[in-house]
């Protein structure tokens, strides 16, 4: 070995001799520069090994051969463990004529126990004839840069986890491990403050003893609760250089001693609003305070932890709100939806998909939603939607849906447009309420009411048999007589053409009269609802009285009228008003039936109530209404009669009320009952239009 050293020394001197005479400045540069410079001859024998190179690769490096160099100096590939193959070393490659730029190498040997990253560039050396005579490499220590890159990459990894909504525990653990890797023999922990703002929860402490972690979990914060509890309580960093003596650690001292912890510096983690979310702590096994690097690490750690915890809280709040909304929606048959008009995309809650009959996995579009609207209403709904989109306003519609297999639903849909910060239409959010059940019930009720009304009219016709027979038989009799007379005159052969014409004219007139009667009856017993028109109630009363005249006559009763000729007109269905009057008149006829004929009187009066409404009253002189509660007569199935359903007045009230009117009943002071109903007058503009 000694022998060999001597030889190396000699050859070193020879090389330096070769170079130095030409330039002493060069030698000085080589000796003083921070980068390692190594020159070798064609046989890979080192010719130059400057002081920086010696420091980098360990003393005695010059005594080795290039083949042994990797093993002796601990030269590794970037994986930090595999020794560099001697033939692949940058120096070897440059001697072979390659030009090497920026090759990274990891070096770990006795002089650099923690390892060192170096960046190498190499060039071949050529003699005057251009033949390769050796190679030169320059190595630069990039350990610090590498560490910073690793740290930055580590932070990036943690932020990526946050963005990907990884579990909070995983994120914080990764963050703590990253911090611990930045300094030797440092332990870190993160505690999270509970929603109650008083108790702490374990966040991450992968390197602290489990017993210690368990003891801290659930502890309250306060002015003397260790470093972390106090930091969170005071909302500022708490540096305890010696937990064995610091009063803040009085309660945890024993535990710290067992775990071998001596110093603990804790900093509160704050939200963007400045609320305490938790704490980040560094532990040391020696008594001291944090240095500048540790302070910077703390800053980074609390910032990232703050983002992670705040985001997780926001997501939790969102999930909780979602769950609440969903619960409310499920129970109220409510669907939520969002339509992105520009992209023709849509989202819908599970309940919504059920209401609209969409498969849970089916991707939704605006057009798909519209395809569910009943074809008859689709264009109208689309127009309302487009209007809302154009004006960035609200959307409000009640329409039918047609689901696959023809199932129909009634829905009420309400929505509003949302804009981005530039005022552009972003989306339309809204909800859909399934009102099919209500609609069905309403419809059923409507049908029932109409059927009852119809039944009542048919029953009324039964009550008026005398009038019906009379009204029809009169014209038929006249026609029959006239026809028989004409035939007889013709048989006798002496017919006067003027007379014949008179007979035929009468027959035509009477057949028309019979037709009118039939039409009147038909309209009364017809099932369909009649249309509303502007009516004069006085005229309707006169028509109705004509209809019942025979019955009045046969019951030996008298109906007198006192009409107000300034009665305002009303907007009503004539048949229904006639039905109301017939019910009241027939009831009145029934009420006076038991009286002697001279007392069988009924008075129908009309009057204007300040021109605002028209009032009709039907008054009889019978026994009157139930004394306790006259209004009882309007109840279902109330009847004092042997026959009848007791539905007449109920129906009467329903008709008056659907006309926006009111009906009442009272006992007249001088005996008998008085029924009166009021209908609102048509507004002047409507009236003039009708006139």
């Amino acid at each position, binding site marked *: 070995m000694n022998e060999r050293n001597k030889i190396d020394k000699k050859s070193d001197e020879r090389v330096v001799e070769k170079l130095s005479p030409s330039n002493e400045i060069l030698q000085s540069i080589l000796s003083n520069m921070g980068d390692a410079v190594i020159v070798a001859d064609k046989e890979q024998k080192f010719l130059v090994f400057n002081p920086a190179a010696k420091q980098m690769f360990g003393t005695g490096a010059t005594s080795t051969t290039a083949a042994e160099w990797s093993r002796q100096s601990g030269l590794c590939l970037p994986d930090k463990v595999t020794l560099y193959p001697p033939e692949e070393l940058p120096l070897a490659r440059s001697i072979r004529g390659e030009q090497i730029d920026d090759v990274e190498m990891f070096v770990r040997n006795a002089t650099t126990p923690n390892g060192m990253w170096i960046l190498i560039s190499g060039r071949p050396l050529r003699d005057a004839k251009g033949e390769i005579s050796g190679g030169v490499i320059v190595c630069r220590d990039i350990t610090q840069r590498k560490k910073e890159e690793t740290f930055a990459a580590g932070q990036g990894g943690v932020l990526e986890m946050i963005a990907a909504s990884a579990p909070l525990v995983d994120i914080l653990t990764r963050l703590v491990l990253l911090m611990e890797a930045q300094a030797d023999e440092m332990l870190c922990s993160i505690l999270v403050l509970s929603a109650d703002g008083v108790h702490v929860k374990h966040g991450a402490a992968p390197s602290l003893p489990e017993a210690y972690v368990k003891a801290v979990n659930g502890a309250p914060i306060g002015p003397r609760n260790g470093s972390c509890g106090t930091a969170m309580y005071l909302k500022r960093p708490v540096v305890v250089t010696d937990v064995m003596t610091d009063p803040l650690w009085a309660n945890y001292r024993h535990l710290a001693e067992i775990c071998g912890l001596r110093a603990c510096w804790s900093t509160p983690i704050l939200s963007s609003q400045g609320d305490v979310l938790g704490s980040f702590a560094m532990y040391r096994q020696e008594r001291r305070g944090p240095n500048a690097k540790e302070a910077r690490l703390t800053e980074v750690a609390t910032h990232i932890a703050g983002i992670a915890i705040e985001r997780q809280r926001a997501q939790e709040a969102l999930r909780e709100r979602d769950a609440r909304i969903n619960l409310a929606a499920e129970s109220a048959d409510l669907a939520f939806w969002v339509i992105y008009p520009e992209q023709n995309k849509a989202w819908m809650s599970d309940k919504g998909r059920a209401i609209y009959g969409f498969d849970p996995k089916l991707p939704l579009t605006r057009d798909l939603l519209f395809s569910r609207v009943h074809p008859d209403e689709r264009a109208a709904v689309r127009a309302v939607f487009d209007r809302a989109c154009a004006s960035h306003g609200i959307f409000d519609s009640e329409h039918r849906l047609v689901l696959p297999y023809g199932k129909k639903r009634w829905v009420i849909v309400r929505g509003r447009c949302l804009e981005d910060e530039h005022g552009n239409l972003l989306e339309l959010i809204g909800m859909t309420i399934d009102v099919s059940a209500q609609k069905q019930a309403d419809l059923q009720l409507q049908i029932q009411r109409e059927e009852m009304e119809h039944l009542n009219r048919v029953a009324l016709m039964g009550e008026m048999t005398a009038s019906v027979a009379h009204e029809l*038989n009169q014209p038929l*009799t*006249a026609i*029959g*007589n*006239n026809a028989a*007379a004409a035939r007889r005159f013709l048989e006798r052969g002496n017919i006067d053409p003027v007379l014949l014409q008179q007979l035929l004219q009468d027959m035509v007139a*009477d057949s028309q009269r019979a037709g009118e009667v039939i039409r009147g009856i038909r309209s009364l017993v017809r099932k369909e609802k009649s249309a509303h028109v502007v009516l004069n109630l006085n005229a309707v009363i006169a028509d109705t009285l004509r209809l019942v005249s*025979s019955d009045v006559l046969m019951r030996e009763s008298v109906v007198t009228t006192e009409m107000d000729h300034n009665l305002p007109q009303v907007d009503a269905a004539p048949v229904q008003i006639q039905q109301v009057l017939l019910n009241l008149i027939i009831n009145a006829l029934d009420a006076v039936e038991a009286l002697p004929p001279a007392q069988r009187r009924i008075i129908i009066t009309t009057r204007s109530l300040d021109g605002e409404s028209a009032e009709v009253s039907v008054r009889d002189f019978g026994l009157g209404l139930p004394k306790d509660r006259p209004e009882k007569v309007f109840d279902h199935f109330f009847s004092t009669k042997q026959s009848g359903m007791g539905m007449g007045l109920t129906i009467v009230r329903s008709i008056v009320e659907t006309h926006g009117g009111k009906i009442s009943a009272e006992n007249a002071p001088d005996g008998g009952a008085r029924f009166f109903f009021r209908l609102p007058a048509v507004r002047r503009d409507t009236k003039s239009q009708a006139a």
Partner: protein
Amino acid sequence: MNSSGESAEVCLVDDDPSVLRSMQYLLASDGIKVRAFNKPEDFLAYAATHSVSVVVTDIWMEGVTGLEILARMCALSPRPRVIVITARDDLAARATAMAIGPVAFFIKPFNDEEFLAAIRLALSGT
């Protein structure tokens, strides 16, 4: 209208003008002399001062009913023969009419031959 002169006239009482006129034509076509009353009161006034042999009356009329006319006819002497025509087959009215004793009872609309036969029978006095 051709009237035979010797035959007695028939009084018609009906408050329906078109029915009344059609009966006038029908009786005229058979050569029967007719005196028509649109108001029952007018007939009663006429009957009080004139001799009436045959009356055709409706039952249900405004003011005075056919039953009242029947009752009044019973009080006259010689008692006029009464033919009742009604638009409605009302049992009570028919029973009352029969009790008072009309010659015939017709439900409107009626057969012209039967009606005229009843009137001729009434005019013949048998």
